[in-house]
């Protein structure tokens, strides 16, 4: 998933996925989701209760384009854990119901490294907020 051709948005996305253990690309923000699928995914993550970073893809249409090219996944939201695409709303919901999500997010083990508050990256149009519960 490395891309070093001059594509700052793709680079910023790849970097964000690399730097945040749990990161959700969504429409809107956790406080104000802009679509039902994103809202449901956020609510599911909040129900598990582990910290996650969130990126609003709406400010720049290129974010969604580059993200989908990178992840080979056409829809929003997209949840990445430890650099890997876990899924969208359907998969996250299914995994939550089966208990897999809590496992994957390390809710059972309290020994996860706490996410340090990250400064917003200076990349165009990508802002990341840490959701520390």
């Amino acid at each position, binding site marked *: 998933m490395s891309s070093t051709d001059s594509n700052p948005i793709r680079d910023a996305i790849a970097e964000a996925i690399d730097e945040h253990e749990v990161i959700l690309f969504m429409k809107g923000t956790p406080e104000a989701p802009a679509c039902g*699928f994103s809202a449901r995914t956020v609510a599911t993550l909040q129900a598990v209760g582990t910290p996650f970073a969130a990126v609003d893809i709406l400010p720049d249409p290129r974010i969604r384009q580059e993200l989908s090219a990178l992840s080979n996944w056409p*829809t929003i939201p997209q949840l990445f854990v430890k650099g890997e695409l876990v899924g969208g*709303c*359907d998969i996250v919901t*299914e*995994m939550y119901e089966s208990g*897999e999500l809590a496992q994957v997010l390390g809710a059972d083990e309290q020994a996860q490294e706490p996410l340090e508050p990250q400064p917003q990256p200076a990349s165009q149009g990508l802002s990341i907020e840490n959701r520390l519960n």
Partner: protein
Amino acid sequence: MPTAEEIKQRIEAAIPGAHAEVEDYTGGGDHFRASVTAAAFAGRSRIEQHRLVYEVFGAEIGGPIHALSLQTAVPDQAEPISAASPQTPSR
């Protein structure tokens, strides 16, 4: 805009042995929910199974098909072909 029936046909034509149930859940012709069972899903992660279905529609996803919500499953069989994937769903 596709209909639920068309979506069903296309999935079943593209994925060998697939059985799909598709509904238009808003009635507006662009938000669909599909439940797909296929032996071709065996041994694959959920992501891979969903990708197989999304790939049938390519760039239509997010366009004329605004939303396609998926549930995928392997038909109940004795033993999966390979034990590679620990999370093969069985429904």
